[in-house]
């Protein structure tokens, strides 16, 4: 693994991303919706209702954000290059497949993690500063904050691999983007089930999910590397 080549791919992807207004806005709008709704909830919740929610993990609702943010970006990585004709020169360059995949994944992962943490931090700050004390103690629980911090990169990575796998197989950019969002919904559903205490939570469950996601992320890298078959991608046949 050559880190210089990985960095070169990631740098190029990030530069291109920064100048692609459509992708950036698509990346920002959907997660913002997921933050606005809980903010409204936090400010309209009465102290008594907040007390009733004390055993829920309301904060984990925000784990939907890292599940959704990378979807659009990741879905663009391969099919986007293919449709704009830049994939062949890139695949002809002296870069290994796993390096190419990692460089592209990092360019999705880093901004997605940053956006997720930013939105989470924004939510916590607003709630801490302006919500009723009873609501703050219900919503902001230390273990949930820790889960949020640890699971954000794991979920981002998982959604990235799923989005990239779809992108490597897709022939149409729009279809890839929609499929990637649909594919991230099961992850969103699981986080919601935990947030609303339908799936029991606890240290063991968190560890189980964490290890499971970590393993899936490693497998995802390999799978996407396998899917980046130059012959199929440049000829459309195989």
């Amino acid at each position, binding site marked *: 693994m*050559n880190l*210089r*080549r990985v*960095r*070169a*791919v990631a*740098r*190029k992807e990030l*530069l*291109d991303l920064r*100048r*692609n207004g459509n992708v950036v806005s698509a990346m920002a709008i959907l997660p913002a919706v997921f933050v606005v709704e809980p903010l409204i909830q936090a400010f309209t919740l009465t102290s008594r209702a907040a007390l009733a929610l004390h055993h829920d993990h309301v904060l984990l609702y925000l784990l939907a954000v890292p599940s959704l943010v990378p979807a659009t970006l990741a879905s663009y990585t391969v099919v986007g290059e293919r449709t*704009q*004709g*830049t*994939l*062949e*020169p*890139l*695949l*002809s*360059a*002296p*870069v*290994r497949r796993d390096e190419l995949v990692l460089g592209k994944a990092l360019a999705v992962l880093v901004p997605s993690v940053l956006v997720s943490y930013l939105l989470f931090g924004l939510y916590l700050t607003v709630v801490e500063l302006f919500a009723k004390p009873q609501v703050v103690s219900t919503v902001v629980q230390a273990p949930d904050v820790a889960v949020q911090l640890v699971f954000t990169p794991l979920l981002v990575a998982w959604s990235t691999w799923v989005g990239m796998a779809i992108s490597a197989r897709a022939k149409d950019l729009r279809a890839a983007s929609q499929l990637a969002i649909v594919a991230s919904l099961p992850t969103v559903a699981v986080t919601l089930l935990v947030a609303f205490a339908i799936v029991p939570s606890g240290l063991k469950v968190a560890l189980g999910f964490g290890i499971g996601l970590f393993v899936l992320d490693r497998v995802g890298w390999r799978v996407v590397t396998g899917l980046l078959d*130059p*012959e199929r991608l*440049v*000829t459309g*046949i*195989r």
Partner: protein
Amino acid sequence: MPAGGRAEATQRAGAGQAAAVATSALTKRFGDRVAYEEVTLEVHEGEVFGLLGPNGAGKTTLVRTLTTLVAPSAGHATVAGLAVTEANALAIRKRVGVMPETPGLYLRLSVEDNLRCFAELRELPDAAAEVRRVLEVVGMTGRARDPCGALSKGLRQRVSLARALLGSPSVLFLDEPTSGLDPGATREVLALVDELRQGGATVVLTTHRLEEAERLCDRVAILATRLRRVGRPGELRRRLFGAALTLRTAGPLADPGALLGGVPGVQRWRASAPSTYHLEVDDPRHAAPALVRALVAAGADVLELTEERHSLEDVYLQLVSKEDARR
């Protein structure tokens, strides 16, 4: 290109030179469809080699095989001294430069950023300096900061060529470098390729513009799924059409059979018009002076004596139409 340069390049392409690219019975099939088959050829170091053929002849797929994007179904090949295998893919890509048919530039990025990325992928010690160098080669130094999306098609082709030149690769593959360009832009790109050949670069050029191949290539291969012929354009012309002279006189010759048939080196002759004669000869350099002497001695008034020139297009059409007839 100066005549000396061309002669030098032709000499360099001669026997005994190391092969920059060699293929042996190379074949690629996609299921039942044959992209190309049984292709055996050699491209010598310092040679500009043209791959000619109609659309769908397998030229681009052959280039993609040689640049390790597409795996061959049978046969073998070496590029820059390395066997074309999955294991050697990275090493081969480091030694070759590829200019695909479409420039494939990141249109939102500047020219410099586009090239910088590929220079980094080649692990060049001073990527910035190398980017400056190739921009100078293609005459784009002043446009380094421009977004590629703001460039004309011709300028994008130049950037694509600059990208292929990064790291001074041993072999350059140029796939239809003038495709879709207007005559002005075509001339500019061809002038750049001409400069490369003068500099001694090994270039494999695919095209279906025959005048381009005739002007630039030391040797050409005509590919129509199978390899039809390989050789210097002049050789191919001679092999297919032989050498011939056209003679025009002020009036019909009194006894053309005795006069023309008696000239050494003239194989056959026929009158193509009342005072115009077509002569098949062994070697025009010897036959023409002998013919002029004989005509003057016979008192004939010569208006014109020219060597018949068949273009590479004639060669190409002859070979490709033969193949069509066979099908």
